[in-house]
């Protein structure tokens, strides 16, 4: 019975240390050393207003924008208040129908040859901000045509928003879709 006292008191003490002091300490150091990252890596417009996070993808379907990967979030794709994947199984008939529809939409947009899996399979978070460079390149002709600007100009924005694997080996090369589209909107033909 004498162990009831430490059970309750250690619970209270550890709640204060692990549940209070620890996150508060990390927050204060993080805000001092990494203010931008700790607050969400937001992109600001020229007036300093937050216009999106460079880590959180947004929905784009207009012909003049670089299209991101499909997203299976609730209500609408890239709903950042409800992260999540499709959780569709590989043999689910509804899922295969959805993929077939996405393939058709891409064909209609002018993509020929094999369709990259990335453009028809939804990401895990539903907020994936990236595309592979080779997959982004496929969309260049469509974007250039819709905007009436040269393809090289579009490709230049994609290259500028491309990050390489970290330390040369970690992860994959990737293009930030929101960064490309924000930049595209500032260009004039």
């Amino acid at each position, binding site marked *: 019975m004498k162990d009831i006292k430490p059970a309750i008191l250690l619970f209270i003490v550890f709640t204060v240390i*692990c549940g*209070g002091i620890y*996150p508060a300490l990390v927050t204060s150091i993080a805000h001092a050393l990494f203010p931008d*990252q700790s607050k969400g*890596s937001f992109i600001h417009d020229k007036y300093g207003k937050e216009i999106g996070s460079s880590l959180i993808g947004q929905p784009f379907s207009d012909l003049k924008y670089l299209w991101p990967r499909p997203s299976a979030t609730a209500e609408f794709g890239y709903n950042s208040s409800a992260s999540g994947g499709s959780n569709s199984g590989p043999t689910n*008939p509804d899922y295969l129908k959805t993929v077939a529809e996405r393939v058709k939409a891409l064909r209609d947009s002018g993509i020929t040859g094999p369709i990259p899996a990335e453009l028809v399979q939804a990401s895990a978070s539903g907020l994936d901000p990236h595309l592979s460079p080779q997959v982004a390149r496929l969309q260049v002709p469509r974007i250039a045509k819709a905007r009436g600007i040269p393809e090289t100009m579009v490709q230049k924005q994609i290259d500028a928003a491309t990050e390489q694997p970290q330390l040369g080996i970690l992860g994959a090369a990737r293009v930030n879709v929101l960064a490309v589209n924000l930049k595209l909107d500032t260009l004039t033909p």
Partner: protein
Amino acid sequence: MSQTLLELVQVLFLLVVLLALVKPLGGFMARVYQGERTFLTPLLAPVEGLLYRISGVQPDDEMGWKRYAWSMLLFNLVLFSGLFALLLTQHLLPLNPQKLPPFSWQLALNTAISFTTNTNWQNYSGEQAASYLTQMAGFGLHNFASAATGMAIVIALIRGFSRRKSSAIGNFWVDLTRGTLYILLPISIIAALLLVSLGVIQNFSPYKTVPLVQSVSYDKPKLDDKGAQLKDAKGNPVTENVIAKEATIPMGPVASQEAIKELGTNGGGFFNANSAHPFENPTPLTNFVEILLILLIPASLTYTFGLMVGNTRQGWMLLGVMILLWLLCFGVLQGVEQAGNPLVAKLGVSGGNLEGKETRFGMVASNLFTVTTTATSCGAVNSMHDSLTPIGGMIPLSLILLGEIVFGGVGSGLYTMLAFAIIAVFVSGLMIGRTPEYLGKKIEVQEMWMSIITILTAGVVVLILSGLAMITPSAVASMSNPGTHGLSEVLYAVASMANNNGSAFAGLNGNVPFYNLLGGLAMTIGRYIPAVAVLAMAGSLAEKKYIPPSLGTLPTDKLPFAVWLTLVILIVGALTFFPALALGPIVEHLTMR
């Protein structure tokens, strides 16, 4: 192809970094649990002493196994009650900027058990259900406490091997306090700050709203005054067209949670998408750090074990078996996921299976995370396991069903692995006609009983519960994918809960009474019956005298035993679960041809 080869180098890189850390951390942990001086002692000893004074702990008051187990259970009961109460009252408490409502009692019960047992199964969506206070003082605390509990239990078992003719196996309160103060907290602080520097968020702001560059129109279901969905005369839901012009971006103290979530092999995500969410895991480098954190303590404990039993080769042998099984499983998963889904390929699509995977991680780092999180009892995910190819999905499922011994949970992995080693010693002892001994202790009836209980409890629970689910209409209705894949979803869910993993084939809707309540039972049984059995074994081993190795002793630190142990693990796993796996993933794979 060269792209994939390049990506595979990161597996090697991970192994090198991990192996370089095993010895320093393993040695450090041995000194901490043996009460020796470390470089943190000057800083932390006063804090430690203060905690003992406040809570009335006598640090040199050694406990027998029964009192040790009782203290462990009592502390876990208090932990559970605290979180259960917090979940039911979070709307009345501070640090709830989104004014989130309380959990329903069934969901609160499931969630409180889940975090207390180091499972972190989540039948709720983090950003839509849990206040910042709940995340920190509730889930955060439990991430530390459940990890420290697991570590204390394995240390007690190791003392059982190393002590001779002793009736005591240590003091639970001291092991709990030292594990938290000296090991979990310092590493978490460093890891959390590292993660923030790489982009993981850490703040207490309310959720932010930003304008969408391109607004979206969608059909939103109309609700009546009570919040229920409106239906038309034909029973179809009534919808209205809505245009979304803004995005709501959730915030929170994520990095501090993320660090201990991986380090303590807890796995409960701050957000619904868990470690796939860009705010939890924004870059390939954070992904690498998170995988490393998951493996760090379970791998290093093998060295702690070796040191404490006086033969580090014993620990390296166990680590070797773990790495072998881990690489084997990664190889299969990588192979089938890279090959892709043939049904999707038929539609004119090229490339590996990327459904439920993030672009920034790519194929290799996604698969590496999947294997790591299920080899250990972590359960965090950076890709959606439900969308893996059938054989791909069978890999994490099998790793969970094996009992999470490939590294395993902090503490729990090693103690389950040691139970397997005892079974392997016993079976080989029968075959060569010798009295089975392990680490100088005779293996007798008590040890065999406790080892078998440790290994088979979760398996028995899984088979009974998944059978029960199949005859319960509400449990079947929770499946989101039809056919054999639905069976895999249910099997995965009960396996994940009974083995305290917490990852899911997340299409399954777990927030129904069947999974909330029976899942809670499965998690409780799966955690505490093996834990108490291990402590009973520790007590019985500690009382035995030491038998020096003789010519007739089977060497357990050499390659033949490593191979033998691997086979025993695979045979026990296959015999228990092959029928269920055959009906789920294997049939699904065959129907894809």
